[in-house]
């Protein structure tokens, strides 16, 4: 199936669009997934920082409590060192947590509570440590025993622990999200690759098909070109032939019309000259005409005048005949052909029947091949063609043998049919083989009546039917007219119009 140009362009554009859209989709999805991963990652880092800050603060506060407990129990200064160290770090740790948690509202809302708890815890720690420092250990122990410090610490542990567990949960979710994004990115790439391969494959198939079609089309054009040249040659040959025929026709017509014209003009002048001598006699009123004048006038009246008038009359008649013959041929050439199925066999048999009587007179015989074809052509033209050929066969039969006519046909393939019309008549000399088809020209002894129109007419009829007629003949042996007839005239007419 050949792809039309528009379809090719359309499908190519659709494929390119599909390819472009899938590429854009892949790139967009990839970019989106990558940026999502980045966002997840940054959030993860921040969450991690919040968590570690919370853990740091808790552990620092635990350190401070441990130092406090040790100092309260022992009262020794070196047990107080962890407390002092933690005390120094607490503010920094607390600040770090606050900064990091500020980015997350769910953590930030817990900050005021934490701040309050941390300062309460620090106050509690500072009170006990101060009491021990002033030697009032029992007071410090009582303070511890109130359980205020433990309660505050528990609350702190809960608060910070919540932050840490929430962060842990978020971290876990973030990892899952990141993993999912990576997976999605992978699938997007795979699907994109498949789409691109699909588009490329489709494009390749279309291009291949189109290329194949182009090659096929080019081959067709080449064949057409080759036959075109042949057809142009054939047409040119036909044209040249037709042109030569027209020239030949014009030449014959002008020549043949000129001949009687010369007569008419010549004998008119002769008539005038004769009239002079008659006038010399008849109009000689004053002096009597001489004997010579009388003789001349008598001869003019008795011989010259009738002769001149006779030639003028016969020449005008001849001109009239010629003009009528030309008119007949030209009318036949212009006649609308009636294209129909024509059974050549029946047609030839009818033609033979028309001359049956004349053939029978000389013991003649007409053999008609059973295989004569049926063609699509103009019946009237073919009737005239075979009618003329039968007439000629009878007219120019050899006097010393009975007439034998045979009509045979064979299929000539593309050229149509070849019909051979053979007689055993007197034949045509080789130099006259073309001449017999010329208008007003005849061959051999002029012992039969005729104007030299028949075969010229037949040829013009055959050519009108897209065929032709040629002759093969040997003088004294017989003649074969070879007719070429296309099997379907309507095709010929169509190709002429094309």
């Amino acid at each position, binding site marked *: 199936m050949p792809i039309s140009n528009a379809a090719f362009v359309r499908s190519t554009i659709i494929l390119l669009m599909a390819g472009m859209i899938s590429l854009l989709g892949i790139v967009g999805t990839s970019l989106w997934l990558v940026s999502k991963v980045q966002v997840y990652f940054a959030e993860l880092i921040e969450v991690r920082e919040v968590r570690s800050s919370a853990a740091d603060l808790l552990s620092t506060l635990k350190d401070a409590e441990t130092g406090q407990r040790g100092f309260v129990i022992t009262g020794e200064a070196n047990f107080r060192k962890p407390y002092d160290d933690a005390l120094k770090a607490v503010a920094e740790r607390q600040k770090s947590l606050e900064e990091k948690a500020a980015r997350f509202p769910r953590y930030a809302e817990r900050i005021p509570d934490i701040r309050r708890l941390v300062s309460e815890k620090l106050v509690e720690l500072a009170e006990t440590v101060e009491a021990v420092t002033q030697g009032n250990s029992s007071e410090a122990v009582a303070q511890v025993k109130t359980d205020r410090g433990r309660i505050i610490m528990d609350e702190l542990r809960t608060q910070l622990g919540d932050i840490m567990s929430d962060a842990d949960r978020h971290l876990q979710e973030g990892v899952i999200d990141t993993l999912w994004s990576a997976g999605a990115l992978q699938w997007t790439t795979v699907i994109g690759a498949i789409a691109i391969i699909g588009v490329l494959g489709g494009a390749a198939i279309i291009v291949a098909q189109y290329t194949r079609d182009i090659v096929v089309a080019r081959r067709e054009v080449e064949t057409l070109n080759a036959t075109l040249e042949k057809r142009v040659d054939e047409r040119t040959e036909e044209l040249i032939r037709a042109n030569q025929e027209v020239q030949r026709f014009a030449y014959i017509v002008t020549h043949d019309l000129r*001949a009687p014209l010369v*007569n008419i003009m010549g004998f008119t*002048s002769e008539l005038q000259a004769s009239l002079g001598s008659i006038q010399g006699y008849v109009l000689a009123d004053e002096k009597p005409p001489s004997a010579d004048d009388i003789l001349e006038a008598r001869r003019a009246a008795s011989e010259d005048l009738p002769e001149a008038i006779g030639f003028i009359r016969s020449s005008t008649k001849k001109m009239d005949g010629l003009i009528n013959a030309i008119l007949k041929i030209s009318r036949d050439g212009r006649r609308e052909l009636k294209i129909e199925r024509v059974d050549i066999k029946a047609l030839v048999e009818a033609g033979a029947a028309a001359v049956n009587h004349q053939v029978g007179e000389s013991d003649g015989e007409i053999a008609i091949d059973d295989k004569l074809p049926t063609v699509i052509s103009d019946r009237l033209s073919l009737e005239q063609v075979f009618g003329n050929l039968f007439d000629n066969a009878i007219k120019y039969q050899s006097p010393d043998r009975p007439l034998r006519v045979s009509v045979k046909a064979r299929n000539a393939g593309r050229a149509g049919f070849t019909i051979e019309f053979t007689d055993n008549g007197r034949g045509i000399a080789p130099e006259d083989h073309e*001449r017999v088809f010329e208008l007003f020209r005849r061959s*051999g*002894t002029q012992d039969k009546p005729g104007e030299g129109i028949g075969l010229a007419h037949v040829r013009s009829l055959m050519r009108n039917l897209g065929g032709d007629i040629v002759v093969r003949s040997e003088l004294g042996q017989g003649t074969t007219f070879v007719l070429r007839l296309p099997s379907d005239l309507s095709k010929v007419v169509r190709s002429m119009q094309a």
Partner: protein
Amino acid sequence: MNGLGKEVTIVMIEDDEGHARLIEKNIRRAGVHNEVVPFTNGTEALDFVLGADRSGLASAGRFLLILLDLNLPDMSGIDILQKIKTNTHTKRLPVVILTTTDDEREIQRCYDLGANVYITKPVEYESFAHAIRQLGLFFSVIQIPETQ
């Protein structure tokens, strides 16, 4: 016109009897009184000049001048010219082509085949009569060879 003191016969091959009559009239007016044998077709003319067997022996010892029209009903004047000029017996016969054709190639072809004179018949009678009378004057002075 004579040939070694013998009367020359003019063979006029002209299918149009009117033309033949006009030609004869004007030749006579030029003072040519030789016998004119007219033929209206090529077959009969060749029968006379070359004989029925076309050997040319029929013309042996004759003094002929041939006036030939190119357009004849049964054969072309060119064929007659060729037959006469290729026959050993008649090849020296003077042949005057007198025709309505003025086609240059036709004229050349006739001279190539050995025509001696080529004259185109004028349509206008004054010129026609003048041309034929000139031809008649020419006839009265030329020498004709004897056919062998």
